[in-house]
């Protein structure tokens, strides 16, 4: 089953062409890690997948829904596409529990009771059921990101998008978030993950996609792309990322 199909996707901001013809298919249950230098268009690509950005041309299908079609009800489509942001974007005026229930109630029209039950189950899953009554500001960054994951999972998404979910975290908090993502992957969730965590890509990804300057440069199983990249640009990027002394390393 094809979960995501991207065809000839272009995106420009004014005169600046950020995506220059992306073609990519992701099957159900795949974990695709998107890597590439800063500014290469990874976030923009992810945001085109759930319609936070409008493509300039080309098509994006998620399941049977063509996200790029002008008649598509994007609000309805987004219910089934979870998104996790670099800076968590939890709702600071709501408790952890309300963060996880509000969209269930307002969007899926679940009762308070059902929403609470689903929320607590998902908070349990990310190891934070005991913090349900806390406010986001009272949590560490790693805990906040796990709540953000639970908030998306509570909508029972068919696809999860992660945009550098651990880049804003202190190094000692990265592991907990990656562990949650790893367990999600083991449960068969279809995931597209923008990350600089090469160990995660190596261990969890079914496929690594290397992007540069708005194009997919190469794609393949992590063992191939990360160990024996075919393209010079991939090699240069990986060397820089894996260079000792940088905070990102292949463990």
């Amino acid at each position, binding site marked *: 089953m094809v979960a995501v199909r991207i065809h000839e996707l272009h995106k420009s901001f004014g005169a600046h062409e950020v995506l220059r013809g992306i073609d990519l298919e992701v099957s159900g249950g795949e974990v695709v890690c998107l890597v590439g230098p800063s500014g290469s268009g990874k976030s923009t690509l992810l945001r085109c997948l759930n319609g936070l950005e409008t493509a300039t041309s080309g098509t994006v299908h998620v399941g049977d829904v063509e996200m790029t079609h002008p008649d598509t009800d994007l609000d309805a489509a987004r219910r089934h596409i979870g998104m996790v942001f670099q800076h968590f*974007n939890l709702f600071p005026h709501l408790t952890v529990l309300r963060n996880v229930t509000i969209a269930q109630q307002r969007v899926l029209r679940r009762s308070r009771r059902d929403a609470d039950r689903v929320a607590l189950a998902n908070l349990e899953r990310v190891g934070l059921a005991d913090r349900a009554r806390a406010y986001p500001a009272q949590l560490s960054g790693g805990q906040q990101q796990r709540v953000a994951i639970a908030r998306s999972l509570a*909508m029972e998404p068919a696809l999860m998008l992660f945009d550098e979910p651990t880049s804003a975290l202190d190094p000692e908090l990265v592991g907990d978030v990656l562990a949650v993502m790893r367990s999600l992957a083991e449960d068969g969730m279809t995931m597209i993950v923008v990350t600089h965590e090469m160990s995660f890509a190596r261990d969890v990804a079914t496929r690594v996609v290397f992007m540069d300057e708005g194009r997919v440069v190469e794609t393949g199983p992590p063992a191939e792309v990360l160990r024996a990249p075919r393209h010079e640009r991939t090699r240069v990027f990986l060397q820089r990322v894996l260079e000792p002394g940088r905070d990102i390393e292949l463990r």
Partner: protein
Amino acid sequence: MTALLRPPARRLGMRARRRLSRGAAYLVFAAGVLLVGLTADWGRLADAFFRWDVARDMFPGVVTTALVNTLLYTALAFAFGLVFGLLLALARLSPVAPYRWFAAAYVEVFRGLPALLVLFLVGYGIPLAFPDREIPGGVYGSVAVGLGATAAAYTAETLRAGIQAVPRGQSEAARSLGMSAPRAMMSIVLPQALRIVTPPLTNEFVSLTKDTSLVYVLGVTAGTIELTKYAGDVLNQRVNATPLVVAGLLYLAVTLPLSQLVRVLERRAARGR
């Protein structure tokens, strides 16, 4: 060279000079107080402003009618201004250009007009223009609209700033959970924006409290009278200024705690909650 670096000859050191000028400032202040204290006719002052019997006769009416009406007018005008101001703020941020133009024009016009002129316009202009209709609620309705129309212009700008101060990521997170744009605005962005603008909105409430002193121009009755008009009437009857002091104290009893509240809220916001 060495001559340039040598400090200029001075009779006093820097510290002594500072102490002297500070001392002079205190001296001037004390002299001023002394001058007023010695030259003022305290007996006449007390007689003009602090006549106990005049003050006593104002109660309870000054509170049960005048202060209550002042607060009622304030609340009504504030509520109208808040609701209409919110609509204007949303119009100002709308993707539909004519809404934006209307809101921008409204805000510019009504911030540029005196509140008294707008009150006249609503109180007398509208009845003249629409003789077969009237604003419901009598003078209360006219005040709500007449003062609220001006308040809405200020409130709209305040709310717009508050909405724009909520990080973009908040509405993006809400949208990516499937919320529609209006839903995200109502459930996620506005509650945070209102928190941000509580201090300036409270200041707007304080301004409105004072602006209700204009209401008398609409012609109020014994039942709809507010503080300033009430005090003015007693002033005329008794030919004594004590009612102004009483009314002033009652205004301050409302506005000072609110101003204090604003200061506390601002300090809390500055600490980052």
